[in-house]
């Protein structure tokens, strides 16, 4: 068996990147479906789309759960995208690591806020 730990760890090759590539696709498809669901609800509101109708869309429990799933999906999707951008343009490791940590903090903060708003309804 090849030695693959510590200083001998290989970080390229089979499977590396595949999980994130697939996750980006799956989360994308999920969010596209969610967009369609919201759009259908918005377009089929009879009369004007005031506060009651708009907030009403997100008040249903099934919609809250679905929106929550989409927020988590968005978190992962955006993380993979931003990681790719930093990886392509920022070569110095210290700078790139800082930007990656900031990106994750930014995303987790946004997700937390969005979930808080959702469950206040």
């Amino acid at each position, binding site marked *: 068996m090849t030695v693959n730990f510590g200083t001998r760890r290989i970080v390229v090759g089979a499977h590396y990147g595949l999980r994130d590539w697939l996750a980006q*696709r799956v989360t994308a498809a999920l969010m596209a479906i969610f967009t369609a669901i919201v759009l259908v609800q918005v377009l089929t509101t009879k009369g004007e789309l005031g506060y009651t109708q708009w907030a009403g869309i*997100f008040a249903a429990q099934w919609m809250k759960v679905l929106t929550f799933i989409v927020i988590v999906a968005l978190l992962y999707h955006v993380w993979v995208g931003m990681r790719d951008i930093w990886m392509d343009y920022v070569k110095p490791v210290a700078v790139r690591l800082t930007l990656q940590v900031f990106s994750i903090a930014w995303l987790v903060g946004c997700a937390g*806020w969005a979930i808080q*708003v959702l469950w*206040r309804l």
Partner: protein
Amino acid sequence: MTELDTSPRAKRPEFRNIHALSDLPSYRLPLAGVVSILHRISGALMFVLLPFIIWMFDMSVSSEISFARFTRAFEGSGGWVLKLVVLALIWAYLHHLIAGLRHLRMDMSHAAVSKESGRRSAAVTLVLSVGLTLVLGAKLLGLY
């Protein structure tokens, strides 16, 4: 190389400067390339504006009063700034979504990854995303 290679090698030419201002602008980016870099830019734009998006969601969904404040923010003297930012977000989301669906199609169809098909789907992406942006933008600006 190895110790067996004793012949003197000519040094490889080094290209240090990307001539960003003289050479880069003269390259012709194919349509698919335009769609691709805009896909990245639209994604980064939405990343940066994510707190603003959540703020809009918060305001619009929390209470009648905050909803009224939200709609009022678009009128008044500073309202056009907000509308411009929202228009940019509308474009960013539409382009990112449509270019993303194009990606998924290319993942699933062998015919979709030919040069001609790539050019055509890129053109469709641009027409659709800009077109829908104009339609929704007109609604945003109160033109209908």
